[in-house]
């Protein structure tokens, strides 16, 4: 039954993803790409469980490595997106007239 629920969730998220993204204007495509990339770092959850569950030594090391990579993706992704978006803020004085 779990597979059924997960598939349901998959189907809904795919539709939702399409609805959400297809509205984003071209201007914001670069931050969108890197923001979405940061979200894909969600694998970090799986990595944490693998590294911390103490199931087998090998799984712990593999998990540790995957935590490392996933955290790079998450931290770097969000920070870089924020840096880009900071430039899009409303300016007190517009560039020109």
């Amino acid at each position, binding site marked *: 039954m779990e597979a059924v629920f*997960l598939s349901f969730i998959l189907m809904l*998220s*795919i539709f939702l*993803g*399409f609805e*959400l*993204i297809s509205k*984003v*204007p*071209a*201007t*914001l*495509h*670069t*931050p*969108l*790409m*890197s*923001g979405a*990339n*940061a*979200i*894909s*770092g*969600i694998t*970090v*959850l*799986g990595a*944490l469980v*693998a590294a*911390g569950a*103490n*199931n087998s030594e*090998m*799984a*712990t090391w593999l*998990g*540790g*490595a995957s*935590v*490392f*990579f996933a*955290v*790079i*993706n*998450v*931290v*770097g*992704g969000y*920070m*870089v*997106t*924020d*840096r880009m*978006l*900071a430039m899009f*803020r409303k300016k007190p004085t*517009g*560039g*020109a007239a």
Partner: protein
Amino acid sequence: MNLSAELVNFAYIISAALFILGLKMLGHPDSARRGNLYSAVGMALAIIVTLLADSIVSFEVIALATLGGTVVGALAARLVAMTSMPEMVALFNGSGGAASLLVGWAALYDEILGTSAPSTFILITIILSILIGGVTASGSLIAYGKLSERMTTAAIVFAGQRIVNSLILVGIVGSSVMFCLEPTLGSQWFWVLLALSLVLGVMAVIPIGGADMPVVISLLNSYSGLAACAAGFAIGNNLLIVAGSLVGASGIILTNIMCKAMNRSLANVLFSGFGAAKAATKVEGEVKPIVADDAFLILEAAQSVTFVPGYGMAVAQAQHVVRELGELLEKNGAEVNFAIHPVAGRMPGHMNVLLAEANVSYEQLVEMDDINPRLPNTDVVVVIGANDVVNPAAREDENSPIYGMPIINVDHARTVFVLKRSMGSGFSGVDNPLFFKENTRMLFGDAKQSISALVAEFKS
């Protein structure tokens, strides 16, 4: 404090809602930054409750790995130049792929060492997570190499490539089946699968030219979402599935938008090495260089000036002086616009980011379809390090590999200045007949220096 599985999952629901809200808000310039923050909060919440869940018992490895990852990620994000954003995203993306691969691998250990024999469904999702993760990781690395020009940007093609790739695919399917039939820890099939996944990533990206890398990154981004999704099925985690499929969908849509902007199909991008296309008609003619002094005189007299930025502006970091020049021209009474081609630069919206950095106001940015009809009445177009996106061969030369790509028709303007360092071609490697047109003047040199020279003249 140990949270029950139910509580953790209810927190995941909140995280998922935050991701969704965040993506929604990323769609408007005003709310985008807050949206990214929401999404980050969702991620932090998910990480915290996962750490508090009772399935996690030892923290040393986690603490070490998290510290390492945070330092690397934060430094990379801080130090990278805005112009190298595409490479950075490629690397982050590869990182995510590697993580999925490793999660799948670790899950494999747990499943096989577990009490009951792993179900085929679980095995398949684990294999998918390893396969997609591996392709994403190695593919992103190659994309990074091409974008940063650490390796040749040309499409790498060789005889029998298709056969080799087919063999790899067959090998992957075969080893997966063999592994599912007999899932043991030391199984050589697993190693074959792992190796072939990584090789497939490399083989998939090398035949694609550097100019198409943004499409590839966006597609690999989508893959990293799918890999997270597969990992979610493997370990039964809802949030991985939701977040993964949101990312998967977003990557595919962006890919599609880019392909449309280049008037090519995705299949065409992926499977027809760009450089390997039929030879374009050779371009010949006389090039008319111009020096900054003369260009200044013409600009001073112009009533309407349109800037067309491209990748070269990013390389030269010329966006700030360009804005300054724009302001001076406006003071001088000219109407100033910036024409933005959707695939100028190396990422979709690349030019928007740079010009926003330089404080150019939204209203001055004009999209390709809106500017083209106005160009015949424009006095001067200043092309700043753009090449492919203003190449009239895309319109005129049926033999050109970029034929059919919509471009900004700068050659229709009264006068065109092209600012670049040499007669070299753009990222597509295609010659540009624009440089030889009657109304074109080449202002050779680094874009930032050329523009600065113009600014200095205006000020004096």
